């Protein structure tokens, strides 16, 4: 339960989702359940995009990622938690964010990851701009994200 069981990485470089999961899972005999959530840059036929740029507020992003990660870790008695969040310009299909939780049982692992994602959506200072063939636009915050967070209050 040491604080070192929480890792937060804010980076522009891409990462390998599966390699990160395997590193996270190694040496974990006391854990029965692991959940990995990966958020990806999405391009659909209805909204085809060329790239997505994540602007962020560096100092606040780091401290908010750490604060929310600590809240999830403690609330769900997790064994281990890692949060990776990228910034900069990303292509469709690239990973934006990955959250990994390790717990004794599945309920805590699932809920820890969900809680963290729900809080990141509205509490981490990132702003997404999508570039498509027709121009650029800032992705609006969703009211669904506010209500997802309310579930935990």
């Amino acid at each position, binding site marked *: 339960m040491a604080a070192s069981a929480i890792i937060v990485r804010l980076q522009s470089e891409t990462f390998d989702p599966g390699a990160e999961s395997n590193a996270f899972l190694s040496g974990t005999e006391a854990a029965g359940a692991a959940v990995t959530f990966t958020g990806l840059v999405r391009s659909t036929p209805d909204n085809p995009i060329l790239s997505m740029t994540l602007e962020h507020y560096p100092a606040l992003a780091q401290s908010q990622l750490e604060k929310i990660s600590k809240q999830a870790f403690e609330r769900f008695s997790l064994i281990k938690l890692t949060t990776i969040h990228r910034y900069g310009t990303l292509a469709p299909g690239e990973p*934006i964010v990955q959250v990994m939780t390790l717990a004794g049982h599945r309920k805590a692992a699932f809920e820890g990851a969900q809680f963290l994602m729900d809080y990141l959506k509205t509490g981490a200072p990132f*702003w997404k701009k999508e570039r498509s063939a027709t121009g650029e636009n800032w992705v609006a915050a969703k009211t669904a994200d506010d209500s997802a967070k309310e579930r935990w209050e």
Partner: protein
Amino acid sequence: MKILYFAWLRERLNRNDEEVNPPQQVKTVAQLMDWLSENDEAFEMAFSDRSLIKTALDEEIVEHDTELGNAGTLAFFPPMTGG
């Protein structure tokens, strides 16, 4: 005091950051937004829907009625879209 701007606020105001020296009667975040709007139409437009303006004082997210105190940095930004 240093002010930072992010995302579409940064684009609309055409600046990343700036130094400001508000008069003494400007005590809260909201009053600073009023004062900036008085002097500049671009701010008046950008700040017209205050529910879309989030703020952080010395890297701590705060409400509009928070007092500026001796803070060194105030950031203005749209609702966050992390994750």
